[in-house]
């Protein structure tokens, strides 16, 4: 018997948008566009293209813009490598601030507000290193604030913000929600040194604090971890997407496949990009795109209870 005093189910499911990170498919933009169109995706996230890092793509922004617009695609975010560098090195940090400025230029040229950034190679726990990280991070916040873009900090186990709990801790410490938000990457939690479970644990910390989601999957092994096709690992993607739909998330789910039929070497996973990274990416990303769409369709279909 229905109870009319219970809250009504959400009547309009939120249409989550899908994108794919360029070099997870190819270094050739036309192949990335073809992939995105064939899979009915809404956009692409720009990391490397033509073997160039995002900060070297500013001069190519007109070409990128034209090709995407012709296919009805948007740019979901710029996947910059900013602050995947040493916290201790003045020179590296200065270099990365220059990289950030170029990535912001690219973001504006491609009509996205989101620039994904990191929190320096891990040199201890965030509890120990928070003050130092905040100090090094501060100039980037000023730059992004002046430019009107969002720095989206990703939880990445090889950096100081290594999981969802640390992402929340960091975002609260920065305290600038108009400028600095999160990228929630539950797949990265599978290799979190603190062993956080992506869903529901990691998600419970970051709920409402992120503007972008990366989609990959993996599992722990005896010797570490391995990436697997989306939906076949330990993330619990169906439960995660259900929660996103229920919570009204309306940003992008951006496919960051990482899995390849033959596992990628660790250095490529930590600094993804380039021809070697994209090799066999198209096949692997196709498998993951199909899995992801089934999961999202199911989560959307279940919204009515």
């Amino acid at each position, binding site marked *: 018997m229905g109870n009319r005093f219970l809250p009504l189910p959400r009547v309009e499911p939120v*249409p989550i948008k899908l994108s794919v990170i360029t070099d997870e498919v190819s270094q050739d933009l036309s192949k990335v566009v073809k992939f995105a169109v064939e899979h*009915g995706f809404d956009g692409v996230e720009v990391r490397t293209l033509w073997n160039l890092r995002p900060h070297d793509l500013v001069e190519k922004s007109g070409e990128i813009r034209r090709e995407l617009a012709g296919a009805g695609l948007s740019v979901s975010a710029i996947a910059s490598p900013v602050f995947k560098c040493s916290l201790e090195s003045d020179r590296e940090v200065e270099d990365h601030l220059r990289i950030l400025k170029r990535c912001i230029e690219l973001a504006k040229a491609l009509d996205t507000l989101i620039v994904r950034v990191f929190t320096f190679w891990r040199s201890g726990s965030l509890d120990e290193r928070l003050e130092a990280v905040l100090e090094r991070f501060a100039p980037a916040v000023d730059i992004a604030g002046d430019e009107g873009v969002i720095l989206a900090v990703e939880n990445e186990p090889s950096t100081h913000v290594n999981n969802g709990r640390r992402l929340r801790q960091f975002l609260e410490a920065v305290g600038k929600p108009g400028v600095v938000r999160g990228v929630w990457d539950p797949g990265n939690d599978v290799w979190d040194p603190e062993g956080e479970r992506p869903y529901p644990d990691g998600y419970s910390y970051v709920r409402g604090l992120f503007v972008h989601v990366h989609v990959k999957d993996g599992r722990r092994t005896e010797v570490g971890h391995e990436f697997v096709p989306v939906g076949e690992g330990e993330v619990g993607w169906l439960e995660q997407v259900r929660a996103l739909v229920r919570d009204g998330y309306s940003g992008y789910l951006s496919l960051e496949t990482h899995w390849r039929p033959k596992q990628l070497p660790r250095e490529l996973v930590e600094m993804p990009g380039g021809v070697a990274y994209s090799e066999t990416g198209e096949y692997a990303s196709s498998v993951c795109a199909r899995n992801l769409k089934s999961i999202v369709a*199911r989560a*959307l*279909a*279940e919204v*009515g209870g």
Partner: protein
Amino acid sequence: MKQPFRLSVTIYSLRDYVAGGKISVPKFIELMAELGAEGVDLGYYWRSEEEKVEARRKLDELGLELAIYITATDFAKPSEEERRQEVVKAKNAVDEAKRFGASKLRVHPGDLKPGIDPEEAEKWVTESLAEVVDYAADEGIVLAMENHGRHFAKVEVVERLLRAVNSPYLQLTFDTGNFAFAGDSPLEAASRLGVWVAHVHAKDVDTLGRACAPGEGALDFEAIVSQLLARGFSGFLSVEYEGRRDQLLGVGLGLGYLRALRARMRLG
């Protein structure tokens, strides 16, 4: 608890998946079961006879109903010979529907061709429908003619055809979006044609006149469905997705909306 209506998905919604060879019909049935559909509309994407057997087995295994069998017909073709061929095609589809265990067959009236007198075309459609309906009645199959195209999607035209044939074996596949595309109000259509409705294609239309998933557009599904239920409708609402998203996501979105709508109507 008895549901006010049941949820289906027409295989046409996933045409790029099925016609493109990405999935088989049995796989389509599996996917729809995963999305919580209670029935499916099947037809015309078969790759072999074996696939039909496998699809039937899959429906039984997963407990899904064959909501309706579908074929596409055009009884408004100017030449008599061509119309004859369409009648044969429809009769074959009746046989097929029966073999498959369906109780309903979706047909189209046809498309009004340039330069053809609408009255003449309606006469052709009526004659062909009457012949196929006689055949279907003997087999115990209800023809559920869809309001489809431009001329033959209009409320008054559909009503004329239904009244002219005047058989309990000719009913209506009520396509919400097609009434809107033809410039008619789906809500008025529900009120006027509700008693004939055997099956519903749930298709929404946005303010720019583009097809989209139920719930995404401007149609008032709650009012339309209420009208249909008040006139005795008790069949399937079938998601027919013709929007621009990935078709599987469009179907998911539509099912989610209709399921929420159903829960709300049950509570109200």
